[in-house]
Structure formats: C-alpha cells, structure tokens
C-alpha cells in the first residue's frame, strides 16, 4: 500500500469510559453534558444521589448550596458520609466525596442556605444550566421558582419522604430537537417526488428489466411505480384499508412467474407490499410541528431568540419557498433488498436532496442571523443539519411556575378537586405533601419528627391540610390514612426511595441539558409501598 500506515482511530480513555452512554445520547449529547454546570441545593441523601448520577456520566461542573452541618441523620441517609464527618459543613464534605467519583468533573460549594443567597447575591443562579433542589421549605420554593422562572433556567424540586417520592419540574420554555420518537416512518416522498427522484423513477421500466434486475430493485421504486399507476387510475392515494389492500394486490400481480406459471420468489416485491402501510400516505407537515412553526416566537424573531427558533424560522421560510410546503428531506433510506448499485443510486438521490435542503435552510439561517444583527457563527451548519434531520419530531415544552401553585388565585384547584373525586387518584399524596410543607413552615419541624409528638402532630397536619383544601374549594379528604402515614415517617428519608428518585431526577436533568427526550410534564409522585406512580400537570 502506498499510503503510510495511519494511526487507527484512537479511542480516548474518556470515550472508553463513556462508551455505554454515548450509545444513548451521542457525542453531541455528551458534549452538552460536559459543558453544563448544575446547582444542587441541599446535599441530603437524595441530593447526593442525584449528583452522583450526574457526576458519573461526566457533567461539566456542579455547585452545592447548603448551609447545614452534618448530623447523625445525614449519615444514616447518605452513603458517602461517615461518623467522622459529623458537624462538618454538609456542602463541603459532599463536594469532596462526589469529586472523587469522577476526575473529569469540577465542583465547588457555598455553605449558605438558598434564601440567604437569593437575598445577598441575586445573580448567583444566573449561569446554571439546571438547578436541582431537595428538602426545600415552602418559602424557599416560592422565591427560587420565581427567580429561576424569570431567568428561564429549569428547576427540579425533589422530595423523598418515608415511602413517598415527589418530583416537580419547572421550565418556562424548553425546546427539543431530538425527541427520539417511537416510530419514525421513512421520509420517501413517493406521493410528492422531488425533481431528481421523479427523474430517477421515470428512468426505470419494470417491464423491460431482466429477472435479475427485477428482483433486485429497491422496494420503494416498486411502490412508486404502482402508486403512480394507482393515482393515475383513481385520481388520489389509496385512503383506506380496502384500497391499500387493492394496491398490495396490484403489486403482487407484478411478481414475475416462472415457466410453470408459478410466481418467483421476489423478496423486494414482498417488501413493497409490506411497506404499503408505512410508506403510502400523504407527505405533510405534522400538526405538532406546524404549531411550533406558527408560534409567535418563531414568526417574530428578536435579537435574543435562541438558535432553535431561528432555525425553526429558517425552516418555515424554506417551506414557504423552495420547500414547496414540505419540511426539509430527512435523507435516510431504510434498508431494503436490492443490489448494491441500485440501492446506492437511490440512496445518493435522497442524500443529495437532503443536503441541498439543509443547505437552503442553512442559507436562510445565515440570512436571518444577519437581519437580527447576530454573528454568523452563532449557529453552526451542523446544528442546522441536525434540526433538518429531526424537523418532523421537534417539541416545545412550556411549563408553569411552581410559585403559582402556592397562590390560591393561580393554583390549578379544579384539577386537584377533580382528581380527588377519584379515590384511587394519587393526587391525595400531593395534597398531604403540601400539608407537610405547610406544617413545616408553621411549626419548624416535620410532622412526627419527635416521637412523643406523633398524635398531636396528626391533628395539626390535618388542620394544615383542611386549610389548603379550603383555599382550593375542595371538600375534606376521604381517608386519614395518608395523614397518619406521613406522621409516622417523621420526615425521615429512606435510602432506597432516595436512590430511586435520585436516578429519576438526574435523568430529568440530563434531558434538559442534552435537549433530548421530552421531560416529565410536570409532577411525578411515587409510592414505594404499592409501587404505584402518577404524573400530574400543574
């Protein structure tokens, strides 16, 4: 060989370490993770579990905010603390322990409570990618949620109380390009072929082919031919099962027969018939995507618009012009039985068109950036390509501010009342948890925290809950069981419940950071006694 032996592509230690997760969120997901700085408020057992699941996969940096000193109870709930650490700063010790888990991660701490920070240094939270908080009192929740809502930074509030786990996600607006949909139909455009595709299709004559070529033709070409014939005869695509069945039969009739009159086994025709369901439909823009493209944030860009909206607008412009009402072509061709030459020829046609479409969107993006007075390198061509590839599945998540739940004027009282009518609904946990928060705010302890107070605390907790229900215009709870349960927990944290919730909360954090997958919308409750869980939207 003429060329000098090149180095085989070196896999860095880091890539090897992260290999198993790169297969889930890709190198761009990993890059986002490594560029992110998260904030954890309160290094409780739960808080530490959450950060552990972020430090291991290689989050860029974390900051722990916690003004507390380590107690016996912390040691009982937190794997990384030993008895020697009692009365040391919880933030400091947790930071040290977590940093040992992964040398690639940076971490620091502030040993002050969140409320103190909010009043002393109001800009403190400005630069975090996500803020996660555990064991936060009502007042701090309200202040923090307002602040982060204003800053447009995702906030995740978690609570692990006895056998119950609760997570509430707050995000003002979160845009997702890679939603990883379950079913992705191929974007073949058989009903609306672009020019080069039509030319290619028209250059092929099924009847004149020899058997070898005939049985090695990619199925999408077969499908196109018979669909074309169908549309000529019927004036429209097959619309229902019966018509699709007829189309299948017409494809079947195209299978060649041997000298004995027996149909030859042509795998590609079989594939074409199978693909009728998924590939024969009108190519349109999905309504969810249309909604995003028609969003005010898309139509009226500002100098502060995010790349997502700028590219979305570029795609919108593309659709209205050279795209002829359609999204940019995905460009991927599914695997099919064919010979290499025919398959690659087809693949090239789709690929070229997809590249051309993405380039057109890229040009429009640059144009928009110019109009907005933004530098042309603020969006990369790679980003635009990625967006074009997944344009059919983009998602915009809009949430609500947690503080609104604490104001009877804005809380979703109807939803609560309605859910409570169903005795099976897990809404009751939400109500009791809110009652516990109220209890904490009033008595500065968890209900049942002190052994000799359990009975009186039950009464007090009930009255807290009644007050809340009254504010929301709801009737009393059907059963007291849950009130008793929560008083029995006495505010203690079960490690296994925290481990469970820690994993879940870290996963939500990663969704926000990588902009992949849709986040929980927006409240999740888990009862470890029954294994039941529920999701509510506030």
């Amino acid at each position, binding site marked *: 060989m003429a060329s000098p032996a090149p180095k085989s592509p070196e896999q860095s230690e880091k890539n090897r370490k992260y290999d198993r997760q790169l297969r889930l969120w890709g190198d761009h997901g990993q890059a986002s993770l490594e560029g992110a700085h998260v904030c954890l408020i309160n290094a409780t057992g739960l808080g530490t579990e959450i950060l552990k699941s972020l430090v291991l996969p290689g989050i860029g940096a974390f900051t722990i905010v916690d003004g507390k000193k380590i107690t016996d109870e912390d040691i009982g709930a937190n794997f990384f603390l030993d008895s020697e650490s009692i009365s040391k700063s919880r933030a400091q010790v947790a930071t040290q322990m977590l940093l040992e888990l992964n040398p690639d991660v940076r971490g620091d701490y502030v040993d002050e409570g969140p409320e103190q920070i909010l009043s002393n240094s109001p800009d403190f939270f400005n630069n975090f990618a996500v803020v996660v908080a555990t064991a936060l009192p009502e007042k701090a929740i309200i202040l923090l949620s307002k602040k982060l809502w204003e800053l447009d930074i995702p906030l995740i509030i978690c609570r692990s109380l006895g056998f119950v786990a609760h997570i509430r996600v707050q995000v003002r607006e979160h845009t997702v390009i890679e939603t990883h949909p379950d079913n992705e139909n191929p974007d073949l455009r058989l009903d609306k072929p672009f020019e080069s595709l039509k030319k290619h299709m028209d250059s092929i004559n099924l009847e004149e082919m020899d058997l070898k070529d005939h049985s090695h033709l990619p199925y999408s070409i077969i499908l196109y031919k018979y669909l074309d014939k169908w549309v000529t005869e019927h004036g429209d695509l097959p619309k229902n099962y019966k018509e699709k069945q007829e189309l299948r039969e017409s494809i079947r009739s195209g299978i060649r027969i041997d000298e004995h009159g027996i149909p030859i086994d042509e795998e590609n025709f079989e594939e074409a018939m199978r693909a009728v369901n998924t590939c024969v439909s009108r190519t349109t823009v999905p309504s969810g995507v249309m909604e995003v493209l028609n969003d005010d944030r898309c139509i009226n860009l500002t100098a502060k618009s995010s790349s997502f909206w700028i590219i979305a607008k570029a795609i919108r412009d593309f659709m209205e012009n050279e795209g002829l009402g359609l999204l940019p072509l995905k460009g*991927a061709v599914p*695997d099919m039985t064919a010979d290499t030459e025919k398959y690659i020829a087809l693949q090239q046609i789709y690929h070229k068109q997809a590249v051309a479409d993405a380039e057109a969107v890229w040009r429009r993006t640059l144009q928009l950036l110019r109009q907005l007075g933004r530098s042309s390198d603020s969006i990369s061509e790679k980003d635009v390509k990625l967006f074009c590839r997944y344009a059919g599945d983009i998602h915009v998540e809009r949430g609500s501010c947690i503080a609104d739940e604490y104001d009877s004027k804005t809380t979703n009282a109807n939803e609560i009342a309605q859910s409570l009518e169903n005795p099976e609904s897990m809404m009751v946990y939400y109500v009791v948890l809110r009652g516990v928060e109220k209890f904490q705010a009033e008595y500065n302890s968890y209900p049942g925290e002190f052994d000799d107070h359990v009975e009186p605390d039950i009464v007090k907790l009930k009255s807290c809950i009644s007050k809340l229900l009254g504010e929301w215009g709801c009737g009393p709870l059907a059963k007291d069981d849950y009130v008793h349960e929560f008083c029995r927990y006495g505010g203690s944290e079960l490690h296994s419940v925290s481990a469970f919730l820690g994993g879940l909360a870290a996963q939500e954090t990663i969704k926000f950071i990588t902009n992949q997958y849709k986040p929980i919308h927006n409240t999740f409750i888990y009862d470890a006694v029954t294994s039941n869980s529920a999701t509510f939207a506030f």
Partner: protein
Amino acid sequence: MAASISGVFSESLQNAILQCKVLIVGAGGIGCEILKNLVMTGFNDIEIIDLDTIDVSNLNRQFLFHKQHVGKSKAAVAKETALTFNPDVKIVHYHDSITSSDYGLSFFKKFTLVMNALDNRAARNHVNRMCLAADVPLIESGTAGYEGQVELIKKGLSQCYECTPKAAQKTFPGCTIRNTPSEPIHCIVWAKHLFNQLFGEDDPDQDVSPDTADPEAAGKQRVLFQKWDFNVFGVFNEILFFLPDTAAEGALQNESNDKGNVDRVSTRGWAENCDYDAEKLFTKLFHDDIKYLLSMDNLWKKRRPPTPLDWSYLPDGVAGCSKDTMESGLKDQQQWSIAKCGSVFKEAVANLSKALKTCQETSPGDHLVWDKDDQNAMDFVAACANIRAHIFGIPQKTRFDIKSMAGNIIPAIATTNAIIAGVVVLHAFRILEHNLKACRSVYLRLKMNHRNQLLVPEKFVNPPNPKCYVCAPTPQAVLAADTTKMTIKELDETVLKARLNMIAPDVMIDGKGIVVISSEEGETEGNNEKTLEQVGIRDGTVLKVDDFHQNYSLTVTVLQREQPSVKDESPDFLIVADDEDLKPKEDITISEKPSTSNGKVEKVEDDDDIDIVETEISPSTSEADVPKKRKTESPTNNTINKKRKVETNNQHDDDVCIIEDDREVEKVALSVLPAIEEKILTPRKYKSLPDDDCSIVYDGNEDQSTASSPKRSKQLAK
C-alpha cells in the same frame, strides 16, 4: 446506622433486616447500587459474587469503582469501597462464577433472599433453578439504556425466569457466514471467527474458509457431505484451510474430491508460516478465498457474486453505508474507506501478532482473547468485517456500530441502574415482611405510556406457568429432532447445555435404565459420535435428564422430526414444554430465504395475526395498561396487543445486539426478532409472549458475565 428508619419500618421488618442473610449475584451496574442500598438500610450480612474484573467502560455508572481499580475483581473492590464508608457491615465476596459447583444447593439455602444483578441469560437461568431448588425468593432485575425491570421469582407463587420460552440464541448457519453473507452481522461474526483462528482459541466451529460442503453449491457434494448438510456447525474435527494456489482448482476440477486437491493446514499454522504478513493474509482472505467461492457457481445464480479485492488497489471512496449519511460524529462513528480498512487491518495484524508472540513466550500454547474494548482486537474485526461487506456488496458499518454488534453492547447509564436498584431493595422489604404478593413486577419505561406512567407495575404477581419445563412439579419437555442424524454429543452440547442451560447433565433412557450421557468424565464418551437412533432413542422414547448440580430433573420425550430441507433458517431441533405446541404451524419454518439482500433488516412480519414480538420493555406507546411481559396472556388482551407489534426493529441500531453463539458474549437482543423457532413455540392457546430476546433486560455489567466464560484465559495486553 440508619437511625431514622425506626419510625418508618415496623419492628418486625427492622428485625428481619438485621437478621437476614442476602446474596447479590453480580457486582456491576445494578449490583453496586444494590449493595449501597442494602448497607444504607441496615442489612449487615451480605454476600456478593462476581466473576468479572473492572473495565474502564464500567466507570460511568459503577460508582464503587474508580480508575485505579481497573483490572481488579469487581466483587472484591465493591466490598472494599462499601466498607470504607460503612465499616460495621459484614460483607463476604467471591471472585468467581455463580455456576461453579462450589455454589450448590447448600450455599443457596443459607440465604433469606437472593438478588440477581446479572447480565446474561445463562447465569440467570442457573440462579433461577438454584433458587427454585433451594426455595429461596429471588429478585430478578435488569436494565438496558433507559429501560429496566424488577420481578420476584418464588417457587409456586410466581413465574420463574424460564416460564416463558426465550428466543433461542441467534446463530447463523455456517455456510451463510463462510460462503454467502448477506447482512453486516454475517461479516462481523466471520471477522470475530477469523480473529480466533489467527490469534485466539482454536474452535473448529468457527472456520472462516469457503465451505465446500454447502449443499447449495453442488448436487454431488451434497451427497458426499451428507453429514455436513445436516449441521454445518459442530461437525468439523479438523480445520480446513484452502491454500491459495490449489484451492480454486480444487473446486473447479473435481467437485467431489475433498482430499485430493485441497490441502489441509490449520489457519494458525499457515499464518505463522508467513509470519503474519498482512499483505499475504489479506490476499488469501479477501482475494484467493473469494475467487474460490466464485468457482462454486451454483451459489451465485441468484445472488450478486462477490468481488475479490486486490491489496494494491483498494478503493478510497466511502459509499453505501445504510445509516443516515448526514449524521456527523466522532471519529469512531465515521465510515472507513476500504483503503482505510486495509491500513487498519495491517496495523492491527502487526500489533496482534506481536501480542500473541509475547504471550506465548511466557506460556507456550497460550492465545489472545477477543475483547471489544481492546483497540487492536476491535480494529481488526471492524476492518475485516467492512472489507468482507464490501466484497459482498453489503452495507458497511462504522467501528462504533460494529463494536455494538460484535460486543453485544447494551447501552448503560447510572440513572437507570439507580432507579432499578432502588426498586429491588424495596421489593426486598416486602419479601422480609412476608408480603410476597405485593412484589408485582415493575417496568421502567423510556417514555410515559398513554396513562402517563413512567414506572409501570403489573396488576398482580404473575402466576407460574403450569407447563414450565423448569418450575412445574414434574418438569416435562418434548424434543423434536431427527434421531437418525442428531448425535449424542449434539444432544449434550447443543440441546441440554446450550439450549436448556444445564451444567452437567446425566441422561438415561426411561424404562431401559441405559445411561447415554453421564456427567462423570470417561463414562459415556464412546457414545459421542453415535446418533440418537444408534443408542436406541427413537420417536416416543422418554429420557430422564438430571442435573445434580442444579438439582434439576427433566423428563424429555423424543419426537422424530425430519430435518427440514431448507438449510438456512430452520433450527436443527425444537424443544417445547408441551407437544401441542409443535402442531399448529410447522410450515412456518420456511419463512426467510437466503437472499442477495443489501442491508436487509430482520424481517418484520406483515401479517396482522402474528403473535406479538416485542422487546421486553416496549419502547412504543403501548395501548395496554401494563406491558404484559413474561406473562401468560389472557385472551382479552389479544386485540390490544396486536397494535404493539414491533416496528422498532430498524430504528435503534445501537440497541441491536444480536447474536451468534459465542460463550464470551451474552445473548440478548433488544430489538431483534425472536428466532423463527420461537414462533412455532408460541401456540395460540397458551398465550405466552415470545417477546423475549430479553425478557429480563440486562444491566450495564454486560462485559463479562458473572458466569459466562469459565475458561477465560489471558486478556490482551492493554
């Protein structure tokens, strides 16, 4: 310890936690988390076993291990790290395989409960049987990517791990691998076999040279090589290696002469003789052997013939990858040109032969072990697989993807393991409170289902399958095979050990008292090459099979079944728990034919009335309340389930982990359709879902199983 728990746990639970003795099988992703959770809950008598050592790729989730621990025993380091934080707990560790005879019934009986944190089916089957035999509750768990599940296995109360048939490990017929590959995976399997032929352990079943016995190749040969026709795997006693200068003529001149013109030399020997010269190897493998294949012209009547490659003129362009060509990525994720493959091949061969030499200097006869995380070994397989794919007009894959497929990599992350391990220990509480009925199986989904559930519990504990061939009171199975062709050795290795996961079976013909297979060495070796018929096993013969180590007895009724004529896709035998299961549609066997496909993907059934084939944890938006996994399906759900037919197969390349029969590798497949055999096994009347290429998904600890390869020898020098 865990002071605050006193108020939450009942006194009896607290006592049970203090007094019980538990076993964790596997110290990988889930195992580390379980160990931590147990320690934090106050369990203080814990034993943990794992055969494996720590790899760099474990560090993204197995938090008890750090960089300095790479290469050390997982079980030992897990214990050590856990004790640094909590010195008062009693932890015993074993760096060993759970299937070893050291861990018999009395070992399992010591424990109040056992928690599996395994990564392979063989070990899961084994622990399942041991726990059933010892009547100890077992918590089975697994994760794959964002998904996971936890379930209880308790004799008489719940389904056992083997109550629903699992898809047989996917194997490929020898002639597909050696002569007529049509999918990337065929080339990858071939490349791994080639690695072993050149650098690894000799395995006659992994021949890589052209297979003249291919029944499709010529009528005459078919007669001559009758035995091979029956089963290409497992009958070679010597290694065929066709020397370049004589091979082609051999086939051209005299098809029926297998000795005259074909020299037999071991692959290794040949490579050593030419001093692992990359060019010579390349020319032999990718030019001469291909020319030889071309001479078997019957093979290419309906196929695209392969194109031999010339070392001096390797094409430099990149084309024809089936993946989205727009995707940009890491270096690892870029498509190599064939020229690039050639240079990677050259370098990898140089490094590997050097490594082989070094290791043989210290202990002669030693060899390398293929490891997906070894750079040279992986480079070698990626390059060879792509070169071969190019020759046969099969789409090439990136090194990244090949690694997934060759190494059966299952994506694994810290978060999912944390969630699942939390649920495992919560199940443990219920068991200790004797509330076993509350241990419903729990599935963690990638996305919310239609009822907005991310975590989906079953409605009840799934009852045992009364016809299970493992946990039924008197386990029964039917073996349908051609008694005139199957040998005793095949019965032992392919059926009893590989398929039924026995460790050391004894087989006796019922009523006659004749022992045909004995687990004692030297007693029945003489039977090995005899056919079943020759030792008196015919249609209707009842065999008593015992595995004393597993405390497992099975009655097997033999049914004579002609070897089907279609060579490629039909299994050599079928084994089912109920002979009724064999009847419904035998004709289905012929469903996939060898084709000259290009990047063909596993076929998805087009028919609406097939049984559901789906991955254990359905990534689809399921219509059913509960993903009924390894569950006996009630008829009412059939209509609903139809909608859940898998269409996901072609989507997640990454999740695909097919695979071949390879001891080293675990055999799960997340999105691979069950083998055809499985469809036969799934009768209409007993609605068990043949979903399970992975009925339990696997945790991150996938690299080496706790029980996988007892004869691992030297790792490649890192």
